[in-house]
């Protein structure tokens, strides 16, 4: 089966600002793909090009096998979109907007609509102007999730939700995964991406700096070792060890996968009192790309 989204060397500028600068992005059919980057990295621009709202300056974008600009209307029958900051027509009620958006997409599953309204605890009889930001977000989410779309494009969908509703959202995404829908989840909430996604793409300044499964990305990076020892150990100068901190008998460092065995052998030789060794969290991976200007080894663009 072909990929749901294929983007190659995509470029888009607004005046002098370069929003996308040779972006590559592949979302396989049926996966939940987290699209990570801070504000202004180009996430929303990518989604707007995929929706055919913006025209790319260069590069190629394919969506569900079609061209997002030329085939916009037929493609939109097969997808649903939730914008990052949802605005709604103030004089319409939430229930009316859910139905309207569903009908505009070409149909809506009534049973699922009811279930989702219950799950997200939304009062559909309220006028949209009376909704808080989180409630507006819920309206757009329910409309998207209740549709029969093959592909969901969610732009920071939980930005306004409280923790309870965020949990409800995660449950919904897991249900969608079972229904084998494809989801592109743009976010800067890393715990959410870590919990939900099959694969991750990290974008910086309009370019993908890292992409792959979390396991792959971790494999390419270093483990964090924190040990309390019985006696001193010499680790500086050992290949594959970096960011070494020694305080008396306590040792902290980052260790390459290849060097892990060697380092553990040296630690046990010194006598281990306590030891934690863990792969970096997504947040640590993410921060590595943003805390330094240097391109990071192991990045695949």
């Amino acid at each position: 089966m072909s990929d749901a989204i294929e983007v190659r060397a995509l470029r888009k500028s607004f005046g002098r600002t370069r929003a996308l600068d040779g972006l590559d992005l592949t979302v396989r059919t049926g996966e939940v793909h987290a699209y990570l980057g801070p504000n202004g990295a180009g996430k929303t621009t990518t989604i707007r090009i995929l929706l055919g709202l913006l025209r790319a300056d260069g590069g190629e974008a394919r969506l569900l096998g079609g061209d997002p600009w030329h085939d916009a209307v037929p493609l939109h029958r097969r997808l649903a979109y939730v914008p990052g900051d949802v605005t709604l027509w103030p004089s319409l009620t939430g229930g009316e907007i859910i139905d309207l958006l569903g009908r505009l997409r070409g149909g809506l599953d009534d049973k699922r609509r009811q279930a989702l309204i219950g799950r997200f605890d939304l009062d559909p009889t309220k006028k949209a102007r009376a909704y808080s930001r989180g409630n507006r977000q819920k309206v757009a989410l329910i409309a998207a999730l209740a549709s029969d779309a093959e592909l969901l494009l969610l732009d920071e969908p939980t930005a306004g939700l409280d923790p309870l509703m965020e949990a409800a959202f995660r449950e919904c995404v897991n249900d969608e995964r079972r229904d084998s829908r494809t989801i592109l989840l743009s976010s800067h909430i890393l715990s959410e991406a870590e919990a939900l996604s099959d694969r991750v793409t990290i974008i910086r300044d309009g370019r993908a700096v890292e992409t792959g499964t979390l396991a792959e990305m971790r494999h390419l990076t270093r483990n964090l070792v924190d040990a309390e020892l019985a006696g001193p150990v010499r680790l500086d100068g050992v290949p594959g060890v970096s960011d070494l901190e020694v305080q008396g008998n306590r040792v902290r460092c980052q260790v390459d996968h290849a060097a892990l065995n060697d380092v553990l052998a040296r630690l046990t030789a010194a006598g281990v009192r306590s030891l934690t060794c863990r792969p970096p969290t997504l947040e640590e991976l993410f921060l590595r790309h943003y805390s330094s200007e240097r391109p990071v080894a192991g990045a695949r663009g």
Partner: protein
Amino acid sequence: MTVLARPGPTGTGLTGTGALARLAIRRDRIGLAAGVYVIVVAVTGTAYTFKKLYPTEAGRAALAATGGGNPALRFLYGRIDGDSIGSLTTWRYGIWAGIFAALMTIFVVIRHTRTDEEAGRLELVGSAAVGRQAALAAGLLTAVAASVLVSVLLCVALPLVGLPASGAAALGLAIGCCGLAFAGIAAVAAQLTSSARSARGIALGVLGVAFVLRGVGDSAGASGPSWLSWASPLAWIQLTRPFAGPRWWVLCLPLAVFGLGTALAFALAARRDLGAGLLPDRPGRATASRLLSGPFGLAWRLEWGTLLGWVTGYVFTFWACGAAAKGIGQLFGTSSALQREFTRIGGQAAITNAYLAALMLLAGLVAAGYATSTVLRLRSEETGELAEQVLATATGRIRWALSYIVVAVAGSVVLLAVAGAATGLGYGLRAGSVGHQVARLLGAAFAQLPATLAVAAVAVLLFGLWPDAAVPGAWTAVGLAVAIELFGQVLQLSHWILDISPFTHTPRLPGGAVTAAPLLWLGLVALGFTAVGLLGLARRDIG
């Protein structure tokens, strides 16, 4: 010293009012200046025109007798006390200047209170060292400043065109006080509902009721319920009798309304939560009706209320103006200069026809304003990021844009039909030939349709090609058409300039001759602009 620089824990509910008022005046400086200018120039210009057209006392007395004797004109303009230039000016523009002043203060007060609150801007402001009632105070202060400016400028300008100073002061103060009264009413309305649109609706509704109440009272004559006028703040301007022995005490009435409204608004504001209104939000439908299922359903749902408001305004205005057409010839006959002009073009019947044709031209111009505002909703949906949600569904750009364009076209047709029918009924009922008048005035109104649509098509063209320029550009087009039609002949502009306005090419009906070619051309221009605009929309970025 730093303690003095910032409001301490003793700050009151009004802390920060000054800063907010300065911000409000800064945000509104162009609109307020334009509003004040229009009111002052309209009143002063009217006085000047009367002075030029009616130099003799006999001519003025005849005009006062006809104008005061025609109930339909009394409904539109109010009562006449005396026949001095000042009295005629008060009759012709007193109430309408009051309406403009009221509109100005209503929009100012609601914009700086409920609109900001609904948009969440007050939340941001309120989290700073600003009292909870500062925004209300700042909005009222801005409205007071504008009203005072209107009064002061009128007090200065009217004597310059030769009116007595005491009358000028009375008229200027009466108009300013009318603005103040409606500022107080708007301040209360802003506390009642949680939506700025409804708050504006309530205040404008009060203004409409005030107009009708005094219209009925003023046109009733001695035997009718003329006391109704006393219930309307708009009538208080003429009841002050500025140029016929001013009754200064009448000015206490609008000031009392302002004072009571302000007090009530502050009391209500102190009791409610930020964002809440006193009138509860009624729950609506939990599911959408069958009608709300496509882009056309959505456009209709969002626009029908506005159209209803326009239709209501058209019915009343054109009914009254049509009824006033009976006997309009005598009105002009009282000025020898005007009489010569009108006999030259064909006497009494011709004067009536010219008046009716001017009404139909006005109906077309105002409908162009309606159609333009409806088309421009496309732009506000786009910048408000509502369009992208519709366009992310299986709705093409052209279909989305056409939904609003169709509403604009259909709405214009309805408005012109209402204008023709209401004028025909109003005039026909008094002249005694309803069927005939309705039929010929309907035709006259529809003859303006191609020009109305050509003006509105400019908005479509700009929206498709230069979206950033769409709003100012489209309104400039409407303004140009209005300016050319209203002042072009008077200013003796060259034909080249007059020809820019599409309304220069529509037939002056009833009375004039009809040729199909210009109407066809205008229709083609409207279609062409729309097509090019839509093509541009299909190719450009959204948002």
